[in-house]
C-alpha cells in the first residue's frame, strides 16, 4: 500500500523550507502546488471563484522542472490575482510537464512568495515514491 502525498514546512532563518513526499513524481508536483497554495492563503478551498487553466513547461532536468512549476504558479498568482492550490498533472517526464490548475481568488495573501530557489534542492527516489526539499523566498 502506498502512503498518501504530504508536505510540511521546516525551519529556515530567513525563508521557508518545503518538504514534499508523494507516491509518484506526478503526485509530488501536485502536492507542491497544494503546499504553495496553503502557504499563500488560509482556507483556500473555501474561496468560490475558480478558474481552470492549462500549464505546459519544459526544463533541463526534473529539479529545474519543479522550480519552473512553482515559479509558474507564483507568476500566475501575481498576474491573475488567483492562487493555484489544486493541480492535476496530465503528462510528466524529467524535462516536460503538462497540467491543469485550478485558481481561486483570495481576499488577501497570507504569505507573498517571491520565488522558488535551487538552493539545497533535491528530488530523491525512495521506498514508496519520491521526496523533495526546496527553499521558497518569502
Amino acid at each position, binding site marked *: 500500500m502506498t502512503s498518501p502525498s504530504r508536505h510540511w*514546512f521546516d*525551519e*529556515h*532563518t*530567513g*525563508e*521557508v523550507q518545503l518538504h514534499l513526499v508523494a507516491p509518484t513524481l506526478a503526485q509530488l508536483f501536485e502536492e507542491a502546488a497544494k503546499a504553495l497554495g496553503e502557504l499563500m492563503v488560509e482556507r483556500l478551498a473555501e474561496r468560490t471563484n475558480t478558474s481552470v487553466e492549462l500549464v505546459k513547461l519544459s526544463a*533541463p532536468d526534473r*529539479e*529545474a522542472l519543479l522550480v*519552473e512549476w512553482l*515559479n509558474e504558479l*507564483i*507568476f500566475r498568482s*501575481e*498576474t491573475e*490575482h488567483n492562487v493555484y492550490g489544486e493541480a492535476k498533472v496530465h503528462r510528466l517526464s524529467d524535462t516536460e510537464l503538462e497540467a491543469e490548475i485550478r485558481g481561486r481568488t*483570495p*481576499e*488577501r*495573501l*497570507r*504569505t*507573498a512568495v*517571491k*520565488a522558488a*530557489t*535551487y*538552493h*539545497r*534542492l533535491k528530488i530523491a527516489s525512495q521506498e514508496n515514491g519520491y521526496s523533495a526539499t526546496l*527553499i521558497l*523566498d*518569502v
Partner: protein
Amino acid sequence: MAIPELKQVSEVVYELGREFRPDMHVPLRVFADAHLLAQLERDHSLEQLVNVCALPGITRQALGMPDMHEGYGFPVGGVAGTLLPDGVISPGGIGFDINCGVRLLASSLRFPDVEAELPSLVHELSRNIPTGYGRHGRLSLSPDELDRVLNEGCKYIVREKKLGVEEDLERIESLGSLTDADASKVSERAKQRGQDQLGTLGGGNHFMEVQRVDTVFDELAANRLGLAPDQLTVLIHSGSRGLGHQVCTDYVRVMDQALTGYKISIPDRQLACAPFSSRHGRDYFGAMCAAANFAWANRQVLAHRVRETFGRVLGGGANSRLSLVYDVAHNIAKIEQFGSQRLCVHRKGATRALGPSSPDIPAVYRGIGQPVFIPGSMGTASFVLVGTNAARDLSLNSACHGAGRALSRTAAKREVTGHVLRKELESRGIIVRCVSNAELAEEAPIAYKDVERVVDVVTRAGIARKVARLVPRGVLKG
C-alpha cells in the same frame, strides 16, 4: 559549521582561510562579536559564505556583515567583489528583491507637537499606502511609461510625473537612476508582474514607520543630515516588487543553463552565474539595473503618498514638509573602483557605505559620509550612521542592512502570539497597522538579532559611525 574554525583577526573581525575547502578562491571574513558569532552557528550562513568564496573571479575576501543570516545562494548580509572584466555576476548574489532598500524622510515637525495627531496620521497612511495584496494608490503606467521608469528610474518619476522635488534626486544612491539599465533586457513576464505594482509597499518584512529622533550621537553630522532630537521621521522599506522577483527568476534560469558553456562549476545551483563581460552577464546587469530603477521609483511614489498624507492630516505648507535624508539599496550589484581594480560588488542584504571623502556621495554630505540606515525589528530602534573612509579597505565600502533575523517565522510564532505582541507595542505608545496577528508575530522583535549589538559591531569595526537613534511610534506592516 563549527565556529572554532574561524580565526579572530581583530576585535570584531573573524576569518576563515581558503585552505578550509579546496574550491575556495579567497578567505572569508565575518564582522561579529562573540554573541553574534554564536548565533551564526545555528544556521547555514557560514556554509553559504564559504560557497560564495568559490565564485569564479572573486577577489579579496567574501564578507559577512554583523546581521548575517541564512538565505539561499549568498547568505543575507553577504558581500563579494568579483574582478572585472571576466569575474562573474550572480543573480543569487543580489537576490529576488532587487534593490530592496530603505528611504528616510525627515519632517520639519517635532514629534511632541503632533503626537495627538499620530493615530489619524497612521490611519490615513494605512489607507493611502497599498500593502500586501493591496493595489489601491498605485501608479498606473502604459507599457512605454513602464520602460521609461526602467531606463530612467526616479528622474522620470520626479521630472515627468512630478512626484517629488528635484532636490530628492541628489539624495538617492546613484541619483535613483542607474545608467546601465536596459528595459529591453527585462522580460515581458517581468513587466507584466510589475505593471500594476509601482507605489505599493508589498508584504513580508517590508514596512513603513513613523518615528521620533530619540538620541543624536553626532550633532554635526545630524545637522547636515537634517536631523535633530525629537524630530518626526518616516522610514520606508520596500523594493522592486514582482518585477524584480521575475528578473531574478528569469536570469537564474538562463545562467543555470549556461554554466556548462562557460565551464563554470559552483557548489550551489542558486549561485548560477556568468562572466560579467559575457552576453549573459551584460544582459542580466542591464535588467538588474532596470529593476533597481523600478525599486527607486517605487520608493519615490511611496514617499509622495506619504507627503500627500501628511499634507492632508497635518495641513499643507511648511508644517508638513518632508525632506529626503537619503535612499539606499541593500540588494544590488554595482561596478566600483578599488585602486587599480574594477570590481562588480554584490551586496545581498548589505548597504553601500561610502566615506566622507568619496566623490560618489551627494555634495551636501561630503566631509560627513554617506548615510547608512540600520532599521531594527518592529518595535525596536533604528539607527542612522555614516560611512567611513576606512570601510573602503575593511568591507568593500559596505555595512549591514538591518538587525538580521535570528529565528525562523515558525519559531517566532511559537515564541510570541500576534495579539499579545500588538498589545505590548500599543502599551508602549506604538500604533500598529497589520491585518493579521500571525503575520505580526512573524516579524516580532524576538525573531531578530539585537540591533544595538549589531550597530555596536559596525562602529567597533570602523565601517560606519553612529549619528542618530530613531524610535518607532507608528508601524505600517507590509
